[in-house]
C-alpha cells in the first residue's frame, strides 16, 4: 500500500507566487463561512484543500474566481491577489478573471446541450480556435485528457445531461480544461469516478502542473497526498494548517489536523 503514503515530490520554486489571499472572510447572510483565511498559492503547483464536509472548502475556492458574486446572500471581505492584482478590485473584469481561473464545480452541471457543444463553448467564446478543425481538435484533446473520449466519441451530439454521473463529472473537467486556464480550481473532481478514471484525472492534474496552478478540493487524503505539493486543512471555516503536503501528512503541527488525518479511513 505504498501508493497511499504521500509521494515526496519536489515543489516548484516557491518564489513565483500565483495567488495570495489575505484575511478573507465570507458570510452567507449571518453565517460566517470563511473566517480570516490567508493563504499563498504557488505557480505550477497543485494545492489540495482538505477538511470535513461543510468547513468552507468550496466557499473559499469560489472566492478565487469570484463565483460567489452570483450568490445574493454571499459577502466576501479581504484581499485575494492573483499575479499581484487584487481580483476584487472594481476595475477587474470578473469575466477575464474566470477565463484565467477555470473551475470544475462540485456538482457536475453540464449544459443541456450536446457533449461537443459543452466542451466547445469555452474555446468558442474565448476565440481559441481559428476554425472548425481546430475546435474539433480542442474538443477531442480535452475529452481525451478528461478520460471521456472513448465513451463519448460516438455520441458527441448526444446531450451532456444524458450521461452517467461520473461521465458528467469528466465532461465538466473537459469543459474546464478546454479553455486552458492559468489556474484550475477543481472541487472534488473525482468524487464520482472509478479508480481508473481517477488515476487518469490525477495524471491530467500532474500534467497541468507543468505549466499552471491547480487547486483541488478532495476528501481523499490519499489523493491529496498523491497529487498535491501543498495542502491546506480547513476546519469550521478556519484555515487550520497550510504546508507542504508531506509535512501535513507526516508531521502536522495542529492537533486538529493531526486528529483529522489520523482519523482517516477511506
Amino acid at each position, binding site marked *: 500500500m505504498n501508493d497511499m503514503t504521500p509521494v515526496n515530490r519536489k515543489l516548484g520554486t516557491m518564489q513565483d507566487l500565483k495567488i495570495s489571499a489575505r484575511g478573507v472572510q465570507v458570510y452567507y447572510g449571518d453565517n460566517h463561512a470563511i473566517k480570516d483565511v490567508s493563504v499563498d498559492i504557488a505557480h505550477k503547483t497543485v494545492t489540495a484543500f482538505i477538511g470535513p464536509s461543510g468547513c468552507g472548502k468550496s466557499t473559499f475556492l469560489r472566492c478565487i*474566481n469570484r*463565483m460567489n458574486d*452570483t450568490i*445574493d446572500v454571499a459577502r466576501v471581505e479581504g484581499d485575494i491577489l492573483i499575479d499581484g492584482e487584487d481580483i476584487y478590485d472594481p476595475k477587474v473584469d*470578473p*469575466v*477575464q478573471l*474566470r*477565463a*484565467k481561473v*477555470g*473551475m*470544475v*464545480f462540485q*456538482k457536475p*452541471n*453540464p*449544459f*443541456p446541450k450536446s457533449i461537443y457543444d459543452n466542451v466547445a*463553448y*469555452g474555446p468558442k*467564446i*474565448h476565440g481559441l480556435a481559428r476554425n472548425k478543425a481546430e475546435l474539433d481538435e480542442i474538443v477531442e484533446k480535452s475529452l481525451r485528457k478528461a478520460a471521456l473520449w472513448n465513451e463519448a466519441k460516438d455520441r458527441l451530439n448526444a446531450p451532456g*445531461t444524458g450521461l452517467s454521473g461520473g461521465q458528467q463529472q469528466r465532461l*465538466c473537467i473537459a*469543459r*474546464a480544461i*478546454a*479553455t486552458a*486556464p492559468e489556474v484550475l480550481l477543481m472541487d472534488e473532481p473525482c468524487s464520482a469516478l472509478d479508480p481508473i478514471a481517477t488515476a487518469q484525472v490525477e495524471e491530467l492534474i500532474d500534467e497541468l502542473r507543468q505549466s499552471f496552478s491547480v487547486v483541488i478540493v478532495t476528501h481523499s487524503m490519499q489523493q491529496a497526498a498523491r497529487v498535491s505539493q501543498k495542502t491546506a486543512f480547513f476546519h469550521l471555516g478556519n484555515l487550520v494548517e497550510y504546508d507542504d503536503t508531506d509535512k501535513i501528512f507526516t508531521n502536522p503541527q495542529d492537533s486538529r489536523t493531526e486528529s483529522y488525518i489520523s482519523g482517516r479511513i477511506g
Partner: protein
Amino acid sequence: MTDATSNAPAIKGTASSLLTESPLMKKRNAAEARFRMYGVIALCIGLGFLVFLAVSILRNGIPAFTQTVVSVEFTLTQEQFDEAESKMLKTAAYTEIFVNGVTAQLQERGLDVPFDGGTIERLMGKVGGDLRSFYRDNPEAIGVPTTFELPAASRVERYLQGNLTREMVVDGRFLEAADLDVVDALAEAGIITSAFDWNFITGADTGVDNPGGAGIGVSVIGSFFMMLVVLVLSLPIGVAASIYLEEFAPRNRFTDLIEVNISNLAAVPSIVFGILGLAVFIQFAHLPQSAPLVGGLVLTLMTLPTIVISTRAALKAVPPSIRDAALGVGASKMQAVFHHVLPLAMPGILTGTIIGLAQALGETAPLLLIGMVGYVAREYPDGFASGLLDPNSAMPAQIYTWAARSDEAFFEKAWGGIIVLLLFLLTMNLIAILLRRKFERRW
C-alpha cells in the same frame, strides 16, 4: 442500535406485498386518481368551452362566406352611360338603369309571378358602385352584353338561407311578402344563385345599406400591419426589459418598484392605453389618425407587460447552476444569459408572445380613441409605408362595427369576421407554437 426499525411500524405492517394496498395507500392512490381526474376534467372543461365557442362561431359565421348573387346579362348603351355619368348621384343612376334593364328582360322572359321594377330594386343589393367602376374600367364593354353576378339584397339571402320566413316578413320598403314569390321563381330559373363570397375575404367595408359588398380584407391588412408593429417592438423590448430586470438589475427598492410597476401595467384597462396613445402619439408626436402604426404602438404598450411577466417567470425558472456553469468557463454574464439562459427560457417567452399577441389582435377599446373604429377600412395600402400610415381599421374594430349595424346580414359578417380573425391568429401563432415545441426540454 435496536431502534433502527422503531420508526417504521406503518410500513412494516404492509411489508407483505406490493400487490395489496394498505389503507393509507388506498387513500393516497385515490387522491392521486382524483388529482389526475381534476386535471382531465379541467382540460376537458377548457377544451369543451373552446369547442362550444368554435361551433357557435362557425355556425353563425360560415354563411358569411357564401353570398346570394343575381346573375344576369345586361347591356349598357353609350347614351345610358353618358346620362348616368352626368348625374350627381351616378351610382343611383346606374342602379336605376340596371333595374329597368333587368325588369324588362325578365318581363320578356315571362315569369309566372307578377312583379315590377320596385320588386327588382328591392331584391337587388347595392349594385350601382360595382357597375360604375366596371364600366369606367372597361369602356369597351359599353354596348356589349355582359354577364354580371351582383349581390342580392340581404333579406333575399336570409330568405334563401331559411333564416327569414314568409310569416316574419312585414311589408315595408325593404321587402314585401309578395316579393318572395319572385325570389322563388328567380331561384328556380337559376338567376338567383349562391356563390362563394371572395369579396368577403378580400373586400373593404361598405356603408350600412350594402351588406352584400362588405369584406374584411382591408382590415386584415390593417391588423397585419398592427401586429407587425406589435411583434417587432414588444417582443424585443419586453424580452430586453425582462433580461435587465431579472439578470442585471441590482436588487433594491427601485427595481422592486419597476417590477411591481410592470405587473401593474397589465391591469391598466386597455382604453387607458388608448388615452395615452392619443396624447403621446397623435397629439404630441403628430402621427396620423387611424393609422395602423399608432394602433400598433398603443397595442405594443399594452402587450409589453404580458411578455415581460411571462419572460421574467421563465428566466426565473432556469436553474442557477446553468449560469454558474457558463460563468465558470469564463463567459460574461451577457454571454451566459444570451447563450444559455435565454434559449432555456424561450418556451415561456413564446407563450407570453402568443398570449400577448392574441390579446392585442382582439382588442378594440384603445382603437376607438385613436380613430380606428367606425367606417375606416376602405382601401388597400399600396406599399409598406402606406400600410403603416394610411387610415385603416383592424379586424376586431371591423367586427365590432359590423355587430352594431342594424341589418342582420352584418351580424353574420361579424361572425364571419371572427372566423377570419381566429384563422389569422392561428397562422400567426403557428410559428411561435412550433418554435416553442422545439425549445422545450427538461433538465
